């Protein structure tokens, strides 16, 4: 059939990726009108990414779930103001997740009896000696991450939890590529310092 060629053309021509942009525009039009199917589609599409981002920084899986759910509820406040593209929404979601995680960590360590430098137990009270090495390493990594600046935590979380390229990270953070390169370098240097307690090479 002649239209087999047309169908193959549709599948192979890069220009038809424009259709995905058009479909996204259509989706956002439905989202802004609070179409429940469109909202569900948006949520399901982006939930795993936000969850991974939060879980990368926070120990407690229940807290990960709560923070992630809160991010999406807050999205309802600003959906009508969002530019109609998925990248803008993703940037907002990750930015909000970053703020909520930081807020949680500030509250957690504001309690005078707790000092992050003397935390020798995991959040459930289990001593590290009773947990597998694997979980202990993860816990130590999270502790080290929490000692970085907010932006440093954000850039490492985006690059490692989302496996984004430098360009994608820069777009989400609304920074130049060169600025992100500098930021991630400093972040990893600081992370290393906190992981092993020694000064980085310079």
């Amino acid at each position: 059939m002649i239209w087999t060629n047309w169908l193959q053309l549709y599948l192979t021509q890069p220009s038809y990726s424009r259709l995905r942009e058009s479909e996204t525009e259509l989706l956002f039009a439905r989202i802004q009108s609070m179409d429940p199917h469109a909202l569900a589609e948006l949520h399901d599409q982006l939930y795993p990414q936000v969850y991974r981002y939060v879980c990368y920084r926070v120990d407690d899986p229940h807290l990960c779930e709560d923070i992630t759910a809160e991010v999406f509820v807050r999205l309802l406040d600003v959906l009508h103001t969002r530019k109609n593209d998925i990248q803008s929404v993703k940037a907002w979601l990750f930015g909000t997740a970053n703020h909520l995680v930081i807020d949680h960590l500030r509250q957690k360590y504001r309690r005078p009896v707790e000092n992050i430098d003397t935390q020798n137990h995991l959040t459930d009270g289990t001593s590290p000696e009773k947990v597998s090495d694997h979980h202990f390493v993860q816990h130590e990594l999270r502790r080290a991450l929490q000692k970085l600046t907010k932006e440093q935590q954000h850039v490492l979380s985006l690059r490692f939890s989302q496996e984004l390229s430098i360009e994608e990270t820069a777009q989400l953070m609304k920074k130049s590529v060169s600025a992100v390169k500098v930021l991630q370098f400093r972040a990893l240097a600081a992370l290393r310092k906190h992981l092993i307690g020694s000064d980085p090479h310079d």
Partner: protein
Amino acid sequence: MTNRSNFNDIFEHCLSALLAGETIDQVLAAYPEQASELRPLLLAAAKAGMKSAQITVPVSARARSRARFLAEAERRAARKGWFWMPARALGTLALILLAVFASLFVTGLASAESLPGQPLYPVKRAVEQAQLALTTSQTGRLLLEERFDQRRVGEARQLIDTRQSQAVDFAGFMVYDELNGCQVADIRLQLTAEQEILAQTLNGAYVEVRGNLQPDGLLAVDSLSLRLFRISGELLEMQPEAWVVDGIRISLASLTQIVGQPVPGDSVSVTAIRLADERFLALSARESSLESAEPTYTFKPLPTQTQRPSTTPQPVLSPEDSPADDDRQTKTPEVEPTSVDDGDGGDHSGEDGEATRTPEDNSGSGKTPETDEPSRTPDPTDDD
């Protein structure tokens, strides 16, 4: 001595290679001079990256979040209405809206006869878009689109009659023969050699074309592609050769991509082309409630696409790897089964048969250089 900027570039290249799966030793083999400085940082990066590989997304958590999200959306939608606004504000708003609609109406009327290149032409197109947006019936939308397609052709012919040069776009059936060359809606096209090959492939197809009209009546083509129609609605009938969506009959081909397993009553979204006998042929179709899934063909990069260093190339579909002709149902993308962790320590992988997507950006996997830079959005809470 490597300056800092250059070092950051080298570090980024190493980091990308590490994230792509190379070992630290493999990465540092390319930079022996900087190895001593890079190694400790890459070790930290490897540890940071290792962590992300173990994160799985509980199906139940996503379901609870979705339920809460939709419930809150419904609550807000129910709360919002005209009744919660003070009467004075309502009156002011009504006057403003009246003034806006009146001016739009007058401008819209004045723009109706405008042609491409004239000041009110963008208004004319905006009014058409508004009409489409306000038309909920699929049949109505298709009729409107057909009417607008005919308008575009009429506008182009008017410009040809007046021998004007102008950028235009319109749609119509492609007719190619060796005597008259290529024509769309009886307007002759001026094509490059590459475009001519494409045009021959599209002979008989309903296409959209953009280009510049010349004084001699030829259209110098900028782009030529299949005219695609998006048809969304309730799947009323489902037969092997055709579906009926919101009253519109859409034929299916052996290569039609179907995502999900819709049944009559489901809400579906179909991308289709128009055939000469007034039929629609589905190119792809999916359940509207599903995530935007990429078709599961074998991927290989186009040589013209920019490749990130040592990262997964942008996926492009290869027609040689399309599924068997009688296999219309595409498999869902291969992803890791979700491990449900509800604190009971059990592993309920694959619960509900629902798989979790990898962190790839599915909406942008066809990311193109044309994707717009998002506008700056204010931080939702306090900054640093």
